C-alpha cells in the first residue's frame, strides 16, 4: 500500500545509485522486498492509496503488462544495489500489497516473485505474503501461490457487518471470508485478516461481532486499523457534507481496547500497536522490518524503499513509472538521506510502537528523563522500564504519538 501524496525530498538520480551511507553496516541488516500492485476492481470510499480501477492504463501500464514492468524494476534494483556497493543479501521477507494484488493472475505474482528470487534468493524460512481480497481468490489460485513460494496470505476482511462494509464500499459478502481462509489453510498458507474499526455508523456491538467473527477463523495474525479519513477520498467528501457522522476518537479508543481484550482472550498478543499474532513466529516480519528500520526495496508505482538511512520513492502514476523503467532509468522521483539526528528521531518514533519496546539505551538524556513522567501517567510499563525498555501500556498504545513527542522533547 502506498499513500496518495509523496513526501518532499531531494531529486533521485536516474541510475538509481545510492549514497555511500546506504551500504554502511548493510551486512548486519535484513533485506526485504515490497511489491506494490496498483490495481483494484473498485475504489473503496475510504481509500487514498495509489491504486487504479481501469484495466487499461496507457503507456505500458496496463494490468496485463504490469508483471513484466515490475520484473524490470526487480532487475534494475538488483543492479543498483550491487553498483552502490551493498553486499549480496538474500530476502528475508517479501510482501505483495496494493491495491489488490490478487486482481493480477496468480501466475503474474508468481512470476514477479520468481524474478526476485533469481536476483537475490530467499533466506531459509523466509516469509512471503500477499494481500488478498476474499472475492478475488480461488482454491486453485491460492494453491498456485503456495506452490510458487508464498507462505502467507492477508485477507482484507475489514468487517463482518454488512452495513459497515457498505459504508466502506467493500464488495465481498461476509460469508466469503471464512471460505477463503479455509482454502488458504488447505493450500498450506498462514493466514492473517485485516480489520478496520471506527467506520461511520459502526456500533461497539458491530465491532465486537467483527472481531469475534475474525477470531472464529482462528487466524495466525490479525491487523486492526482505525479508519482514517483521508482528504480527497469519497468518504471525506460525504463526511464534509454531513452524510456520515464524524470520526470520534473516544469511540476509536473503546474499540481498540475491546479488540485488544478479545484478541488477548483468544490467545493472540499484540506485537505492534495495530497488529496481533498467535505466536512470535506468526508475527509479520515484513511489517516489523518497517518499524525496525531494516532495508527493503519497494517495487511499483509510488512504492517506498529504505537502505541504511536513505529513503526513496517511485513515481506515483503507473504510466510514468513504466516509462522510466522502459527508458532504463530509475523509477524513483525523490529521496532523502537522513542525518544521525533524523535517524534517531525515526528510531524512537518507530520502535516505541513495538511490544519488544525501545531500549532505554537508545534514548538521549532528554528522552530518558521523560520516561518517569510517562510511567506516572500510566503510558509506559514500569517493570519493562526498570528492565531497560520503553514498553507502552494499552493506554500508552492509544497515545503512542504523544508518547513519542514526549520522548523527543527537543
Amino acid at each position, binding site marked *: 500500500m502506498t499513500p496518495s501524496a509523496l513526501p518532499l525530498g531531494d531529486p533521485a538520480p536516474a541510475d538509481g545509485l545510492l549514497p555511500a551511507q546506504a551500504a554502511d553496516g548493510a551486512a548486519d541488516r535484513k533485506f526485504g522486498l515490497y511489491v506494490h500492485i496498483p490495481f483494484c476492481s473498485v475504489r473503496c470510499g475510504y481509500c487514498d492509496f495509489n491504486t487504479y480501477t481501469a484495466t487499461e492504463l496507457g503507456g505500458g501500464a496496463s494490468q496485463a503488462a504490469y508483471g513484466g514492468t515490475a520484473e524490470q524494476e526487480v532487475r534494475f534494483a538488483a543492479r543498483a544495489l550491487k553498483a552502490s556497493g551493498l553486499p549480496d543479501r538474500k530476502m528475508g521477507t517479501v510482501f505483495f500489497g496494493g491495491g489488490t494484488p490478487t486482481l493480477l493472475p496468480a501466475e503474474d505474482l508468481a512470476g514477479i516473485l520468481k524474478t526476485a528470487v533469481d536476483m537475490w534468493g530467499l533466506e531459509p524460512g523466509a516469509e512471503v505474503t500477499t494481500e488478498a481480497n476474499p472475492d478475488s481468490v480461488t482454491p486453485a489460485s491460492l494453491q498456485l501461490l503456495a506452490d510458487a513460494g508464498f507462505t502467507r496470505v492477508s485477507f482484507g476482511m475489514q468487517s463482518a457487518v454488512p452495513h459497515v462494509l457498505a459504508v466502506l464500499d467493500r464488495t465481498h459478502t461476509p460469508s466469503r471470508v471464512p471460505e477463503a481462509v479455509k482454502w488458504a489453510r488447505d493450500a498450506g498458507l498462514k493466514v492473517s485478516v485485516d480489520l478496520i474499526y471506527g467506520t461511520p455508523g459502526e456500533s461497539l456491538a458491530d465491532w465486537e461481532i467483527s472481531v469475534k467473527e475474525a477470531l472464529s477463523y482462528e487466524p495466525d495474525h490479525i491487523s486492526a486499523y*482505525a479508519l482514517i479519513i483521508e482528504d480527497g477520498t469519497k468518504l471525506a467528501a460525504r463526511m464534509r457534507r454531513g452524510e456520515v457522522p464524524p470520526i470520534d476518537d473516544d469511540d476509536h479508543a473503546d474499540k481498540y481496547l475491546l479488540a485488544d481484550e478479545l484478541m488477548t482472550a483468544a490467545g493472540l498478543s499484540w506485537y505492534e500497536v*495495530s497488529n496481533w499474532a498467535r505466536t512470535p513466529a506468526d508475527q509479520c516480519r515484513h511489517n516489523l522490518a518497517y518499524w525496525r528500520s531494516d532495508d527493503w526495496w*519497494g517495487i511499483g508505482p509510488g512504492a517506498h524503499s529504505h537502505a541504511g538511512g536513505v*529513503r526513496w520513492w517511485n513515481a506515483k502514476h503507473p504510466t510514468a513509472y513504466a516509462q522510466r523503467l522502459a527508458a532504463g532509468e530509475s523509477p524513483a522521483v525523490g529521496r532523502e538521506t537522513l542525518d544521525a539526528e533524523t535517524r534517531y528521531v525515526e528510531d524512537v518514533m518507530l520502535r516505541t510502537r513495538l511490544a519488544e519496546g525501545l531500549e532505554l539505551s537508545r534514548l538521549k538524556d532528554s528522552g530518558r528523563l521523560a520516561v518517569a513522567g510517562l510511567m506516572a501517567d500510566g503510558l509506559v510499563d514500569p517493570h519493562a522500564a526498570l528492565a531497560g525498555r520503553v514498553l507502552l501500556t494499552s493506554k500508552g498504545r492509544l497515545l503512542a504519538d504523544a508518547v513519542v*513527542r514526549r520522548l523527543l522533547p527537543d
Partner: protein
Amino acid sequence: MSPMARFSPVPAATDPAIIRNFCIIAHIDHGKSTLADRMLQSTGVVEHRNMKAQYLDRMDIERERGITIKSQAVRMPWELDGESYALNMIDTPGHVDFTYEVSRSLAACEGAVLLVDAAQGIEAQTLANLYLAMENDLTIIPVLNKIDLPAAQPEKYAEELAKLIGGDPEDVLRVSGKTGVGVEDLLDQIVREIPAPVGDPNAPARAMIFDSVYDTYRGVVTYVRVVDGKLSPRERIQMMSTRASHELLEIGVSSPEPTPSKGLGVGEVGYLITGVKDVRLSKVGDTVTNLAKPASESLPGYADPKPMVFSGLYPIDGADYPVLRDALEKLMLNDAALVYEPETSAALGFGFRVGFLGLLHLEITRERLEREYNLDLISTAPNVEYEVTLEDKKVVTVTNPSEYPEGKIKEVREPMVSATILAPNEFVGAIMELCQARRGVLGGMDYLSEDRVEIRYRLPLAEIVFDFFDILKSKTRGYASLDWKADGEQVADLVKVDILLQGEQVDAFSSITHKDKAYSYGVMMTGKLRELIPRQQFEVPIQAAIGSRIIARESIRAIRKDVLAKCYGGDISRKRKLLEKQKEGKKRMKMVGRVEVPQEAFVAALSSDESKDKAKK
C-alpha cells in the same frame, strides 16, 4: 448657478471678509467624503482625471472603512455675484472616539454643513456633533444627501432636521454627492450664510492647531486656523502649552496638494512644517504664537487626550516583540492619543498595555499594526480604568485586571458615560432592555420625529466597551446609532473573576466585572475554553473563581487516542514529517502549567465573536 472662480484669492493676502471656514458634520456612510470630492471638482481644485474616490481620506483603512480618522483642510476658490471667495473645508473625523478632535475642528470654523443621508435620517454621533457645533455658535447649513437614492425620504428627514436646528423644512438643501446635483447651490449657500472670520490682524499671532499628522518625508504636518495676527515663513513660532519653539520651515495651504504660501493671515486655514518628528510636540488644541512677539493668552479649549479603554497587545510569536515595540513607537508619532507601556503576562509573554480613546481607536490601531507591520496580535479583552481604594485608604489605579489589589478593598470606582441612542421607536423596548442589563440608568427620552426617538442613558463605560455596540446594532436591525461621552465615575460592586486551568491562574482571562455578572462571565469563559482548548493527556479542570471561591467549573476530558494506526507501505518519511509538524505545533502552544493552550484559543476566547453570534440568534 455660480461659475468657477476666475481667480483665487492669494493666501497671506486674503481679506478675512472673503474667507469662509466650514466643516461637514456627517455620520459614517452618509456620503461626506463623496460630497467633499464633488466640491473639489466643482471648484476646480482637483481635475476630474486626477480624482480618486474619497480624495481626502488618506489612509487605506480610512478608504476601506469609508470613515475619516484624521481631519484635514482644503482651500477652494468660489465665485458668487462677481466676488471671489476662499472656502476652507475642514474635514472632521466622524466617530465618537475622536470627539475631542471634532471639537477642535469645529472651533476652527464659523459654519458647519450638517449632512444627513436622505434615506436614513440623522444618527446619534451626528446629533452629538451638531450639538457641539451649536454650542460653538456655528452657523448650520442643513443638507440632505443621496437624494438620488430610490429609498430617499427627503420630506420626512427635512422635517426632522428643521425640528432639530429650528428652521423651515423648505430651507434644507437637497444634494447628491454622487451625481453632483445641488452641490453648487450648496457652495453658494456657504458663501451667503456662513459669517466671515473676525480677528485682530495687528495683535500677536494666535493660531489654533486642529490637526497634526506625521508624514514620513516631511515630519509632522500641523494644520492651523489663524485667529489673530499673521504667521510667516522662516520665523520662530512657539507652542503655548509646552513653550517649545520651532522654526517655521514651510507654511501653506492645501488645495488639496500642499502649496507653500507667504504666510497665513487672520481667518486663514493652512499647514505648518517645522521639522519635528513627533505629533506630541504639536498637539491638537494647542495655540501657536510668534516667539519674538508672543500672545499673552492662549486660545480656549485645549485638553490632553485621555485614554478611556485599555487592552494588552501581545505578538502571537514572541519573537515579534521588538517589531511590535517599534511599530507602536511609529504609530505614536502620528497619534497623540495613543499611550502604552510594556507589560508581561504569564500566559501571553511580553507585550504592551495600550490606552485608547475608544473601541474604534483600538480596532484601527490593531488593524494598522497587523497590516502595516505584518504582525499577528492577540489583544486582551478591553477594560476601563478603575480606582480601587483599600481599607488602609491606599488608592490603586487599575488598567489591567492583574493589577487588581489582593488586600481588603473598601470601594471600587468605575468611569461612567452618558450615552445617546437614536433609533426608530419600535426598538425602544429592546434598547431599554439592553441598557438596563448593562446597569444603565435612563436619563430621558425625546421624539425627534414621529417615529424616531433619542434615548439617553448613564452607563458604566466598562459595559459598553466590549460588545455593546454590536449587540445594539443587531437588536435594532442596524438602525440604532450610539454616541457617548465621559460622565464622571461611580462606586460599584465590582469583583475580579479569575480563570484557572488545572489550578493555574491564566492572567489573560481575568476580568473585573460587576458582582451580579461574575457568575455569567465565569460560565461563559469556562465554557468557551472547554471548546477551544484541545484535550490533553490528562483531565483539565477549568474554574472561574473570585478570590478563593469557585463560581463555575468545566472540565476537558483527557484525550484517549493520539496514534496513527499505521504507516503506509513503508512511507516513514510521511510519518516523520507529521511528527515534526506536531512538534512545531507544540512550539506555538502557550504552556499554562502542564496544559498546552493553542494561540488560537487565546484569540478566540478574547474576541467578542461569540457574543455577536449569540445576539444574532
